[in-house]
């Protein structure tokens, strides 16, 4: 009898010491959020989290609002690649940049790599070519299972295995091999200035270094950026890694203007595309929420071409989740169709994660407020 009394008292005090905050944190972690930290603010509390499951941060914000429970929470600080992206008000979803104090608070609380789950991601890799006379529709489908591990603030490594499923497009065999793997460093040296450096193997059989810089004030309509890469050709015949020397340089400058009413972005990029292809490319991108659809045309030394691209989160998202691990489908499957396929016209390559321009576009305060 006495024992159970002490037990009850114990549970009571434990409950008190954990408080509502701890419950809210657990509930967020259970809902797929990672690196969850509470932070005292002027009027209530802010919650810092990273959420890799959803492509659109608006969905993550709504999801956090529903799952956090605690009514004293007034805002959220979503992280991307272990960096705080901004403060979004819980009620109005309005945006303001992170202050130096908030950044310092997060730096102190940041737990690496234990603040994250083992996050295993399934994504298909699909290439197709139409219009060949012998085999009119050629395609190659691979399935990739990969994971990203955070090593240091902003520094992460992504690697995995690539399983070929079907291929009548070209060589590359049917053996399992290393999926595009890279080391990625993401930093926000000054507010609105973003830098991403990626080194490793990429899609479209490229390996090398890729650098991105963007100026993007989430409250503004104009954005601009620089993308540059120094790459070479690689392939994996069995257990070896075959590489051509690094030889290809991409150097692109871009400007984007956003028509807020329709979530429509106009983008002009120019410079040198893949394969020493110099010219300009215009993009029209519509953000529907989860899905982006874009049209583009390019005029370069290789000729004139056009096409479309789309990006969407792959159904169903979460497959299974434990306390320390998760299996999910990719948050972004991106596919681009280019009308011309003989010589590359206005092309770049996928690096295995969303490019900064595509990622930051979704944190725009109008985009988040519009939905």
């Amino acid at each position: 009898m006495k024992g159970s009394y002490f037990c009850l008292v114990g549970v009571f005090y434990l409950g008190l010491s954990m408080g509502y905050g701890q419950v809210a944190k657990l509930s967020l972690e259970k809902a797929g959020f990672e690196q969850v930290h509470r932070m005292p603010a002027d009027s209530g509390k802010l919650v810092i989290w990273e959420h890799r499951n959803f492509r659109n941060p608006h969905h993550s914000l709504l999801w956090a609002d529903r799952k956090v429970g605690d009514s004293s929470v007034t805002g959220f600080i979503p992280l991307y690649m272990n960096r705080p992206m901004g403060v979004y008000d819980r009620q109005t979803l309005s945006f303001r940049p992170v202050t130096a104090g908030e950044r310092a608070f997060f730096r102190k609380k940041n737990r690496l790599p234990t603040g994250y789950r083992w996050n295993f991601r399934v994504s298909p890799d699909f290439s197709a070519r139409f219009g060949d006379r012998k085999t009119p529709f050629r395609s190659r489908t691979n399935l990739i299972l990969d994971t990203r591990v955070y090593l240091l603030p902003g520094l992460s490594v992504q690697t995995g295995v690539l399983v070929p499923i079907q291929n009548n497009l070209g060589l590359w065999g049917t053996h399992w091999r290393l999926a595009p793997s890279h080391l990625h460093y993401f930093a926000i040296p000054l507010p609105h200035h973003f830098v991403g450096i990626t080194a490793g193997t990429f899609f479209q059989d490229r390996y090398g270094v890729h650098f991105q810089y963007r100026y993007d004030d989430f409250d503004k309509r104009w954005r601009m950026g620089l993308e540059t890469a120094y790459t070479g050709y690689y392939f994996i015949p069995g257990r070896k890694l075959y590489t051509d020397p690094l030889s290809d340089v991409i150097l692109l400058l871009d400007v984007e203007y956003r028509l807020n009413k329709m979530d429509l972005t106009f983008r002009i990029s120019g410079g040198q595309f893949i394969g020493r292809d110099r010219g300009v490319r215009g993009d029209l991108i519509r953000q529907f929420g989860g899905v982006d659809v874009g049209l583009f045309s390019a005029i370069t030394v290789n000729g004139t071409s056009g096409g479309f691209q789309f990006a969407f989160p792959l159904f169903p998202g979460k497959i299974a989740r434990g306390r320390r691990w998760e299996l999910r489908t990719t948050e972004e499957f991106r596919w681009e169709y280019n009308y011309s396929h003989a010589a590359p016209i206005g092309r770049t390559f996928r690096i295995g994660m969303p490019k900064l321009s595509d990622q930051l576009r979704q944190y725009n305060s109008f985009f988040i407020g519009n939905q």
Partner: protein
Amino acid sequence: MARFFWGLHLVFKPWQPPGYSAYLLFLLATMIFGQLAAQVNVLGKPGYIMTPNARWEQENQLALSFSYVPQAYAINHFMGAYHTENIYGVGVGLTDFMEVYLNITRVRARASDIGVGDRHLGFRFRLLAEEKHGVSAVLIVSAPIGTNQHLNHDALIVEKTAELSSTLRLRATLGYALPVIFVIPTKEGNRSLSLLLKSKKQENIRYLSGVFGGFSLDWNEKVGLSMEHDGHSVNAGVFVRPLPWLLLQGHTFEAKELGFSFSLSFPLSVPPKEMRADER
């Protein structure tokens, strides 16, 4: 999930039983709950049977369509002959005044030679909205690219709808399509932007040239019938929408041949499954 992309590949494999791709599309549709599917023409643009109309409500959705066109009324004149053809279409409303459509044609009889044929890209622009101007108007422009331009059409369409009762609606459309097509010769290494004008008659393109028109009568947007004159023939059909996102249509060409089509629509702004599952 790979099955979906696998499926896209299988759609064009020559040994498939008929309707297999339709089945795959249906599976895909059941995975995501869609929005209202519009009545579309054989190319997947809002319309009756062969002709387009000026209906406008595809914003925020992706529409997929499939149609079967019998040989006598086929559109694609591949290698000097017409064949029974299947036309696949994808359409998406990019803005509230512009939609983009893409088509590929599969000719089963010539699949081993020409496969999916050439791709057709078209745009649809909203000029007038009926709520505002009393009549709706739409402009269709085909991208002047490609080597096979059999699907190309540039047309202006006006339309008027009338509510006959609280459940019955009549829609009447009149349109004019240019008897010529525009072509930009796209060759690798060719950077000059020259626009050529070609006569449809000389190029053996019989799809939509000159005046066309049609009407439809529907009950609660669930069942309806439609009739049209596409410039060559008078066609009539019935359609039924068993599910909001699925529309099936059967029609006759001049009461001589039968054809069918269906369209599906998906919302593009749907929240992730984990969120939706939580709401239930």
